[in-house]
């Protein structure tokens, strides 16, 4: 198929940036979206132009490196997948596709479609861990039984890949879904309870400091999340936060 692409080009953080139009031809429907981008970049190199910079790595939907706002949706029109898993059969011959970076104050553009997600790192460093040193003598893994329900809910929250689609989809650029996933994972496990109060307070404080917006419960983040992280996590984080504030 033949497509028209309108892609955001921006040389660096200080550059203003603009949409630039490209044409690609003979695109196979079996290609992944990023393979289509590879084809475009190869043609740009052949013409001595600078290829389009975009983040990607594992190309199997788990590393969280790839981003891209495609036709106004994070990770494109398909559900439950990342951009690298999106295939060209989702599009039709003759389509025009708009490709932009994540848009959020806390995610400044580095170049073209690549944004700086260090804000997520700093939030995790503020409390996204259990304070346990490496030790050959921790208690046996089966010493504390954990109900299957809580273990599974914890796993569902832990499935977050930290890509930032929740922020990109939110009209407030809120990071609540991301932060609540980590808070929930630990709050649901006995090992995480000891530090639960400090964790939620510190992570939320850092989130606010980074300039993410507030949650107004529109639920776009849950719809666009490639890993199906549930809004219930935000409710759980709010309960944890309230609990921590009262104690």
């Amino acid at each position, binding site marked *: 198929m033949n497509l028209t692409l309108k892609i955001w080009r921006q040389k*660096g953080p200080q550059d203003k940036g603009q949409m630039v139009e490209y044409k690609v031809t003979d695109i*196979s429907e*079996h290609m*992944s979206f*990023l*393979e289509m981008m*590879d*084809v475009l970049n190869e043609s740009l*190199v052949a013409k*001595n*132009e*600078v*290829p389009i*910079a975009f*983040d990607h*790595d*594992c*190309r*199997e*939907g*788990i*590393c*969280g*490196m790839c981003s891209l706002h495609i036709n106004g949706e994070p990770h494109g029109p*398909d559900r*439950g*997948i990342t951009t690298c*898993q999106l*295939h060209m*059969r989702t599009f039709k011959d003759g389509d025009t596709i708009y490709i932009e970076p994540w848009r959020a104050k806390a995610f400044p553009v580095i*170049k073209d479609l*690549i944004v*700086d997600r*260090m804000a997520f*790192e700093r939030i995790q*460093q503020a409390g*996204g*861990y*259990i304070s*346990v*040193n*490496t030790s*050959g003598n*921790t*208690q*046996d*893994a*089966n010493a504390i*039984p*954990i*109900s*299957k329900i809580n*273990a599974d809910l914890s*796993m569902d929250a*832990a*499935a977050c*890949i*930290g890509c930032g689609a929740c922020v990109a989809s939110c009209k407030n650029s809120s990071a609540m879904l991301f932060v609540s996933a980590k808070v929930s994972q630990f709050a649901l*496990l006995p090992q*995480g309870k000891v530090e639960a109060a400090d964790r939620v307070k510190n992570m939320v404080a850092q989130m606010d400091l980074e300039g993410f917006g507030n949650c107004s419960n529109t639920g776009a983040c849950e719809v666009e999340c490639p890993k199906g992280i549930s809004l219930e996590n935000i409710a759980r984080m709010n309960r944890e936060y309230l609990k921590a504030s009262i104690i």
Partner: protein
Amino acid sequence: MTTLNSRVPQGPIKDKWTTYKDNINLVNPANKRNIDIIVVGTGLAGGSAAASLAELGYNVKAFAYQDSPRRAHSIAAQGGINAAKNYQNDGDSDYRLFYDTVKGGDYRSREANVHRLAEVSGAIIDQCVAQGVPFARDYGGLLDNRSFGGVLVSRTFYAKGQTGQQLLLGCYSAMNRQIARGKIEMFNRHEMLDVVKIDGKARGIIARDLVSGEIERHSAHAVVIATGGYGNVYFLSTNAMGSNATAAWKIHKKGAYFANPCFTQIHPTCIPRSGDYQSKLTLMSESLRNDGRIWVPAKIEDAKSIQKGNLKPTQIAEEDRDYYLERRYPAFGNLVPRDVASRAAKERCDAGYGVNATGEAVYLDFAAAIFRYGSEQAKIKGMDNASKEEIIKLGEAVIEEKYGNLFQMYEKIVDDNPYKTPMMIYPATHYTMGGVWVDYNLMTTVEGLYCIGEANFSDHGANRLGASALMQGLADGYFVLPYTIGDYLANDIRTGKIATDSPEFDAAEKEIKDKLAFFINNKGTHSVDYFHKKLGLVMWNKVGMARNEKHLKEAIKEIQEIREDFWKNVKVPGDLNELNPELEKAGRVADFLELGELFAKDALERNESCGGHFREEYITEDGEAKRDDENYAYVAAWEYTGKPSEAILHKEELEFKDIELKTRSYK
């Protein structure tokens, strides 16, 4: 010339590690504060090492080319992690895990290292649970296990189909705690481009800030390389796009021997290639072989019709199907080790029985499992007169619960419903058992330079068993390196800060800057990928699943030609001082073009078939791999002397005192 000394402690194998730990030198806590360690790579091995070393009190500098340590390719491991916990009471023990790993590795690994791995395996699970890793549990709240290829017990712990992700997030969280305390200085979007040696010891690295393009000098008392395997030498593999061998290859060129490069694992269950634009291959977890049956048509005319698209797999009668793994290996059936399963698939496809348009695919069929589970469910639900459709519906629900995410992934990529029609799979490069040679302390042949995880060679011999890579990465990082590195650093407590304005740093930096400038100024005719794809094709066709002398010699010559062409005609757009992915790739491919040749040379030199290394000249009468323990029970450690073709071979003879050398049989 460096001599090879594996430094394996004396004494009975089960006491070696304990006795050794009791007697090595320690660094007192106050002195640890004066010692710097560089860790390159932040996957399971590097991440766990960085966190553990920082907890001990060392000053750690960690480097990752991604924007976060959480994105290292360990994250893509699906199936699980082995540990000899014996929670299932099925007869597991440290010895059995040790035995299975040595046997699975086709007797080409170092016994003492493997036993230590088995000994610390249980502590890994304890540690991960304490960190909040949400492993799968049963209804009683205790940890659940599954079974993997090549073993007869259930010792694999898992977190849905995302075990690697959860384990990596565990050590990432441990790292974050140390980053917050200032004990780890994290360098995201940085790539190591060389190691710096002073007086024969590793004392620092040269790294490039991938955002600004700036070349930086970093010094330390010891350097740890944890940068994973070199599977991308094939261009197409299940590795991440950025996975590369540059750090490992650069230290090889500075004196670290490279061991057994020809031991590479081709994983049997990957989604087949669909076209020339293909950028990578996707793995389907080995756990699918618990329930999927692998087959090709028994009649060649059926195979031809399928390849032309005139026949569907569901139209082929049961008696016209060849379940070749069950036929050839009745004891292990579809759960034979990876190398055996991959070769068997290639054998059928080479004989013309492959099932997609390219003839390079076999079926992985769940119809039998769906019917079996469905019948069981119908019985449980008391549906005595259930129709076939009802049974299938019930069975599909069971399969969905077990493998739903994998089936969804397959459907998204291939656009075919694997519940209704068999999956198509084909082998793909997945893991490299070979790597940088290390002694018992995980130190390379360069003093103060360590190598851990997939990047080293030590534990998996010629073939790795499923769910053992995660175990090895975490064992090295959490429980081995933190002890052994102290023994070396105990002599460095009075050294003080290492300066970066020395002639050695000047020289290393100049070399890197010149090479990068060459790429930008060359103005050649072909992109980096053009050369990488050419190399990959030679590697796959001539140094792939089956190798022979003629092809290997041709491959060496062809790789040399591609390399020559690359240095004349490569084109890298953009600038030095900016984010430039083409420039990053150019450096990596330059190193693959050298590594590929050594790989072929190593394969040519090893005149036997073992594990992932299959030489067509060395086979038994029934077509199985024929090992030669008399002449090849050694580790081939290569010393760099200026060109891959002139590398010097050093042999570490392997001694098997605790396990009898036997022909591996899965029949």
